[in-house]
């Protein structure tokens, strides 16, 4: 008889014992339990190098390879590429006109991203990205976990010597990398157009603004990636999961302002003979409510970062509007965008955290 392990930890409460996903699988809560050295027949010739950890990188590597070769990446690049070309092309005239007035001033380059010709039907590039970005996140996340279940690869995967959270962390990392790849590619496309077609050379301020915008966009799309992954953990069928994620995206995109308007009117009514204060209170409430939505937060970050003239996205009364907008340096814009940016990161982390926790508690068997 070999010695018994010094302490067999029996599951604490009955409720915990019945929980399907276990601490044993996660390897997190009990990672502390150190083994005694050199024992048992398992430590024979089968022992290998002292390679440890990094399991999530192996998973991420494989997943990223899948993404890069996938048809969905190709479709998304084509879709976003078309949007970029259409938006930038129609903006060109507008930028040319502005160039007459604003030669030498900062912001000409970023105008190409955020402005649109007043006569054009096509919204600016950033608006198109805000609209289509969630699709990008959903595309790389909706079948992350239930796809493994459908292919019946999950039991095999978690039986390899990696921590269970390596699976979901690796998949999230791979998704973010694929998203960043697409966004950087599109941004380079637009920048190249600006340079070669319009001869606009971006200054350091321009580059900082566009780079910050790309980072913010990756985080925003990362929120949708995390949300789609949550769906893929909770819902067993990939099609259902995709539908659920897309539905939420559509509801938030189409009806968010309607919903916040209804709620704001109920909580802070605006009677027919409303005072200015009442109207402002209502509008402020509506704005605060809409900031629950990642899309609103992202659009505010975009407004601050890409438009140096924006000093506030809050309620501005006509008399408060300066006659000639001053141009903020990048650091000032970044400072203004900071709270929204942090809130956006927070939402993304919360969403991924939810997917993580549910996944860790799930039974391996489908």
């Amino acid at each position, binding site marked *: 008889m*070999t010695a*018994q*392990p010094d302490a*067999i*930890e*029996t*599951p604490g409460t009955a409720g915990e*014992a*019945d929980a399907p996903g*276990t*601490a*044993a*699988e996660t*390897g997190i809560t*009990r990672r502390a*339990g150190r*083994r005694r050295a050199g*024992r*048992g*027949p*398992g*430590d*024979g*010739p*089968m022992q*290998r*190098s002292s*390679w*440890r950890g*990094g*399991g999530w990188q*192996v*998973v991420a*590597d*494989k997943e990223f390879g*899948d993404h890069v070769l996938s048809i969905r990446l190709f479709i998304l690049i084509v879709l976003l590429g078309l949007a970029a070309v259409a938006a930038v092309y129609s903006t060109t005239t507008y930028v040319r006109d502005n160039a007459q007035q604003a030669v030498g001033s900062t912001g000409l380059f970023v105008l190409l991203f955020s402005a649109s010709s007043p006569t054009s039907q096509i919204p600016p590039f950033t608006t198109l990205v805000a609209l289509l970005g969630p699709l990008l996140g959903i595309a790389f996340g909706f079948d992350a976990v239930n796809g493994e279940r459908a*292919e*019946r*690869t999950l*039991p*095999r*995967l*978690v*039986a*390899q*010597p*990696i*921590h269970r959270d390596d699976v979901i962390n690796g998949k999230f990392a791979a998704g973010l990398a694929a998203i960043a790849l697409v966004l950087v590619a599109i941004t380079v496309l637009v920048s190249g157009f600006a340079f070669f077609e319009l001869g606009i050379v971006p200054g350091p301020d321009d580059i900082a603004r566009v780079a910050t915008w790309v980072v913010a966009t990756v985080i925003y799309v990362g929120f949708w990636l995390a949300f789609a992954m949550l769906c893929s953990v909770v819902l067993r069928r990939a099609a259902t999961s995709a539908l659920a994620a897309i539905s939420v995206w559509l509801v938030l995109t189409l009806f968010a302002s309607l919903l916040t308007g209804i709620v704001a009117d109920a909580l802070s009514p605006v009677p027919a003979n409303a005072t200015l204060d009442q109207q402002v209170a209502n509008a402020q409430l509506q704005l605060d409510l809409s900031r629950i939505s990642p899309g609103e937060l992202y659009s505010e970050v975009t407004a601050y970062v890409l438009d140096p003239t924006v000093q506030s996205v809050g309620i501005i009364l006509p008399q408060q509007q300066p006659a000639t907008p001053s141009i903020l340096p990048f650091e000032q814009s970044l400072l203004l965008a900071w709270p929204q940016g942090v809130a956006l990161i927070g939402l993304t982390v919360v969403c991924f955290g939810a997917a993580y926790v549910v996944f860790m508690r799930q*039974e*391996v*068997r489908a």
Partner: protein
Amino acid sequence: MRSKTSRGERTERTERTEREGAPSIIRARGLTKRYGDVLAVDHLNLDVRPGEVFGLLGPNGAGKTTTILMLLGLSEPTDGHAEVAGFDPTRDPLEVKRRVGYMPDDVGFYGNLTGRQNLRYTARLNGIDPRAVEARLGDLLAQVGLADVADRAVETYSRGMRQRLGLADALVKEPAVVVLDEPTTAIDPAGVAEVLDLIGSIARDRGAAVLLSSHLLHQVQQVCDRVAIFVGGRVVAQGTMRRLAEQMGGDTLQLEVGIDGPAAELEPALRAVDGVTDVARDAHDPRLWRVTGARSVQGRLAAALAGRGIAVWHLRRIGDDLDEIYMRYFAKEGAGDDRAA
């Protein structure tokens, strides 16, 4: 229901597994798993030693998969504990998983990758540089008969081919323990023999302990050194085939005898053999007889009948056939349900 073709005398398993002294590489003591009101595994004790093939045999829902998941640290026992390759799967799941090759029930692979690419991924997840094992991956694929299709996407594989790939996959890490959940279910009969051969050689040549679960007893009995009959979460019998037969039959045995001739002559002739206590005609095949009697009958019957001019063209002991054992335990389980250990 039972196969009528003679399987011949089953070769007696060697008693090499009777090395009682060898330390077991899989040990379970009082292992229990409860899902709500369902007691999926009930105080299981298990010992598997290196170099042996151990069969966990039982019907669907017996708790085989649950047991395997607990041994791998993929599911937490409600009670009891296990030790696999020297580690507690609950506390050191990674150490266990480094040493255990596992093929799940209904194994799946990434359809967009080739068989070889899937194995490479497994190698990398085990911290093995795939370039270092490239040659071995080729060997493994050849061993399971997939050399020709190794570079085809797995989505073009049949289920049986996937199961073979699963076997190769479980061996990628050169495991000290191999756990196979229902390894033969989807494989065609000719393939089953090959796969069982391979499983046997894993234990013999690599010295690994093999724990396999199955509900197809007649398929896996030939490869198992020892078995545990597992019903309703409990082990109702455990040991070598021979031991189980002795436990079961006691001093009596049952023979299936194939002889031709009028029943009126044959039956008295059979009854006349020394030690025979009961004779009955087989319910399905009128040319077969079931003879019950003392152990000594097996040696005497053919000669005694030959002395009366009756040629025996088929003689099979059915007392220690696993199928038979299994059916009997099921019968006991269903009828009495008093075999709680």
